[in-house]
């Protein structure tokens, strides 16, 4: 399945957002997620099924003004 991960095309076998995070090594990382423009809480990643062309954002803390 092909999705858009952080704005770039990405091929994954992950069926849920939780599986995608684990596959990327983010299982215990300090990250937050959104799918198709809407926030998905960490606790809800397991129930969030991914489908073709989903737009997934995975973000982390960064410097800011």
């Amino acid at each position, binding site marked *: 399945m092909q999705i858009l991960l*952080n704005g770039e095309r990405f091929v994954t076998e992950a069926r849920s957002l939780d599986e995608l995070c684990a596959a990327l090594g983010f299982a215990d990382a300090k990250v937050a997620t959104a799918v198709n423009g809407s926030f998905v*809480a960490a606790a809800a990643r397991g129930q969030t099924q991914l489908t073709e062309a989903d737009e997934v954002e995975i973000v982390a*803390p960064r*410097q*800011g*003004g």
Partner: protein
Amino acid sequence: MLDLYSTRFSSRMLLGTAGYASPDMLRQAVEASGAEIVTVSLRRESARVRTGQGFWALIEQLGRRVLPNTADCRTAKEAIATAQMARELFGTNWIKLEVIANDDTLQPELFSLVEAATELCAEGFDVLPYTTEDLSAAERLVSAGCQVLMPWGSPIGSARGLANKSALQTLRAYFPDTPLIIDAGIGVPSHAAEAMEMGYDAVLLNTAVAKAGDPVKMAKGFAKAIQAGRLAYEAGIVEPRDMASPSTPVVGTPFFKIDHA
């Protein structure tokens, strides 16, 4: 003491964490500034580089309260989703709400700002909106539930100081009980002192310190200027006047003669 959403702070300086030459320079500048609140953002995380994980460790070491922003969001929907991600990521209800109108001025998009603030206040966020000096927008933001307003001094990163002093004074007079923080456009300590002398409650800055030749020294300079400006405001400032007025007593001036001719 500065009181923001029922939390009290002794420092009236909020410092951004972006643009420093190194993480150690950032740490030293924050310590030199005495700032108790630092702003942060969230950005896409690469599985390979994992930049954010290291930055988070640094922020935890700083031990300051974090104020996450929604920098560069262009719509209310983007800003709301970013705020929701920030709340989970940083474990705080505080959000510096930014909705940006265009690239050249980075000015707030006030209509979407009010829309996002309304939704986020309803969701229990403590919203600190980055806004302009516009009174009607300020009223709408306060009505939406914002207990703090953060008008710009001048465009982000421009270092031009307080571009519209008259309107900022009006805003201060119009909202005597709402904490007002000048956010953006501060270039030198005198800009910050000026804002504080006008009765603004605090100043938020980043570039002026981060890009200074010596950020640590500049952070100290800003801390002193902000304290000086606040002391002056609390002390009560004399009114300017058109003509000179002697400060030394005139009575008893030696050699003084009344001309009886």
